[in-house]
C-alpha cells in the first residue's frame, strides 16, 4: 500500500514535469505567457527552498529573499567586474548565499521561532541599506546591469528568447526541485517530518537537531542564491526593489497558499499567485486588494493550503463509495 502510494506520487510529479515540458508547444511559443511562466518557475524554486526551511525544518526564516538577492548580486557583480562567464557566476552566487546562510544559521538557529525570524529579517533590512549605500559598487537603486548574458549559439537566455529561455529555466527548475525533493526524502528530511508530527521524536533526535537545521538552512540558502543568480542572468538586472515588502509578501504567500511543508505545494502556489497577479493587473489600484482578498478567502476555506485538497476530499470520496479503511490506515 505504502509503496504504491509513493509510486503514485512520483508518477504525478513526473506527469507535472511532462505538462510543463509540453506547455510551450501547446502555447505555440506565446512569448507573453512563456515569460510569465519563466518567472513562475523561478519564484517556484525560491518558494520551495524557503518552504524546505520553514515547512520542513521549521526554521522561521525571513531571510530567503535576502539570500536570493545576495546570490543575484554576487553573480551579477562578479560577471561584470571580473568578466566571469555565467556558468561559473551562477554557482558562485549560490555558494555565496550558502556561506551567508551558514553564518546567519550559526548565529540564530538556537533561538526560538520568532527570534529567528527577526534576525533573518535583519539580514534582509541591512542588505537593502548596504546596496543603496554602496552605490559605487552595487549601482544603488538602479541595480546591477551590463554583463555578458548566458548564451548558447545565437540563443540568449533573456526575455527576448522566451522559447529557448523557458527550457533552460525548466531544466534549472527540475534540477533544483529534484535536489529539494531528495532532501525531503532523505533521512534528514524524514526526520524533520517525523519531528513536526511528534514531540517525543524531537527529543530522541537530541543534539543533532541543530546540526540538521543548519544543514537544511545552508542548502536552502544555496538554492535561493542560485535561483537569484539565474534571475539576474535572465533579466539582465537586479535592483533593491526585489527586497521591498510587496515581493517579500508575495513569495511568503506563495508557499503558504500551496501548503506549508507539502512538497510541490510551493511550486503550485508560485504558479497560482504569479498568474493570478498577472490576470488581475487590469484592476490597477484594486489589484492587490483583490489578490489579498482571494488569498484570505481561499485560506479560510482550505486552511491546509492547496496541497491539502486531496487529503480533505479523500474521506468524502471514501464515505461516498462506502469503503472503510480506518483500521488499515492506522496500522
Amino acid at each position, binding site marked *: 500500500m505504502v509503496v504504491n502510494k509513493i509510486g503514485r506520487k512520483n508518477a504525478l510529479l513526473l506527469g507535472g514535469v511532462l505538462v510543463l515540458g509540453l506547455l510551450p508547444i501547446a502555447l505555440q511559443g506565446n512569448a507573453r505567457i512563456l515569460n510569465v511562466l519563466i518567472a513562475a518557475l523561478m519564484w517556484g524554486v525560491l518558494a520551495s527552498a524557503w518552504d524546505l526551511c520553514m515547512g520542513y525544518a521549521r526554521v522561521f526564516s525571513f531571510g530567503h529573499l535576502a539570500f536570493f538577492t545576495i546570490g543575484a548580486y554576487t553573480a551579477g557583480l562578479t560577471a561584470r567586474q571580473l568578466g566571469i562567464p555565467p556558468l561559473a557566476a551562477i554557482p558562485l552566487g549560490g555558494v555565496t548565499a550558502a556561506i551567508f546562510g551558514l553564518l546567519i544559521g550559526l548565529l540564530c538557529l538556537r533561538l526560538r521561532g520568532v527570534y529567528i525570524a527577526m534576525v533573518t529579517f535583519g539580514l534582509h533590512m541591512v542588505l537593502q541599506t548596504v546596496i543603496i549605500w554602496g552605490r559605487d559598487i552595487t549601482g544603488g537603486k538602479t541595480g546591477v546591469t551590463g554583463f555578458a548574458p548566458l548564451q548558447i549559439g545565437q540563443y540568449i537566455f533573456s526575455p527576448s528568447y522566451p522559447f529557448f529561455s523557458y527550457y533552460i529555466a525548466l531544466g534549472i527548475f527540475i534540477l533544483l526541485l529534484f535536489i529539494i525533493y531528495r532532501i525531503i526524502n532523505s533521512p534528514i528530511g524524514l526526520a524533520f517530518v517525523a519531528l513536526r508530527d511528534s514531540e517525543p521524536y524531537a527529543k530522541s533526535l537530541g543534539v543533532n537537531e541543530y546540526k540538521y537545521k543548519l544543514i537544511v538552512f545552508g542548502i536552502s540558502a544555496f538554492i535561493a542564491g542560485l535561483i537569484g543568480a539565474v534571475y539576474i542572468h535572465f533579466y539582465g538586472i537586479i535592483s533593491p526593489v526585489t527586497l521591498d515588502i510587496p515581493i517579500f509578501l508575495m513569495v511568503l504567500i506563495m508557499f503558504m497558499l500551496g501548503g506549508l511543508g507539502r512538497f510541490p505545494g510551493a511550486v503550485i502556489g508560485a504558479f497560482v499567485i504569479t498568474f493570478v497577479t498577472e490576470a488581475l493587473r487590469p484592476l490597477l489600484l484594486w489589484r492587490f486588494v483583490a489578490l489579498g482578498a482571494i488569498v484570505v478567502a481561499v485560506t479560510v476555506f482550505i486552511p491546509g493550503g492547496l496541497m491539502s485538497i486531496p487529503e480533505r476530499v479523500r*474521506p468524502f470520496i471514501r464515505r461516498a463509495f462506502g469503503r472503510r479503511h*480506518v483500521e488499515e*490506515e*492506522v496500522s
Partner: protein
Amino acid sequence: MLEVDRIDTYYGEFQALKEVSVNVKEGELVVVFGPNGHGKSTLLKTICGLLTPASGYVKFDGEQINGMPTQKIVGMGMVYIAEDRHLFPDMTVLENLKLGAYSPHARPKEAENLDYVFQLFPRLKDWRKRNASTLSGGEARMLAIGRGLMSAARFLAIDEPSLGLAPMVRRDVFRTIKEINETGISVLMVEQSVVQISEMADRTYLMEDGRIVFEGSKDEALKDEHVKEVFLGI
C-alpha cells in the same frame, strides 16, 4: 444525572470510542477501569465537551450537552479534572484557584469554596503564593482537584487521580475524593487499577479497546472472570 448513550468518538480517522454507554446517578461515585490507551480519557473529554462525539448523545440533568462548548457545560455544574492536570504554570496557586471559579455561577461562592478547598488541602493554603509550575506531582494533583471544586460543580469527572503518585499520597487523594463524594457531589472517575479503590466505588465499568465490556457493582467486578484476567493476570 449523567447519561451517556452509545457514543462514537474519533481522532481524525481513528475511532477511540465505540458505542459507549455509561450513566451516573445523583450522589454516586462511579469508576471506569481499563488499561492505558483504551479510551477512558477520551470518554471524559467527550463528556465535558473537549471532544465531540460523531454519534450518540450525552445528557446531563436530562439536557443534551454533546456539541455544547465546554464553558457552558462547566456552567451547568460539571467539571473535568484532567490526567495531565493542565494547571496554569506561570500563575500562583491562589490565581489558579481563582480562575477555577471563572464560571459565572461559581463566582458568588468563590470565598466559600476557597475555604472549603483550603480545609480539604491545608497545604495549598501555605503554598498559595507559589507558582504552579514548582509544585510536585501530588501537590499539583491536589491543586487540580481544588481548582475543579472551585467551579461549584455538582459533578466531577476525574481523570486518573493516582497517576504517577506515591502509594501514600495516592491513598490521601482517594480518601479526599471519597470525602468530596460524601458531601453529595457525584463523581465519575477513571482509573487503571481496579484493586486500590474498588471498595469506594458505588458502581464500576470496564473499558477495553474503546468499548464497555463490563458493568456492575464493585463486588461483581471483583468476582468477574474477565476483570480478573485483565487486571490480576489470573
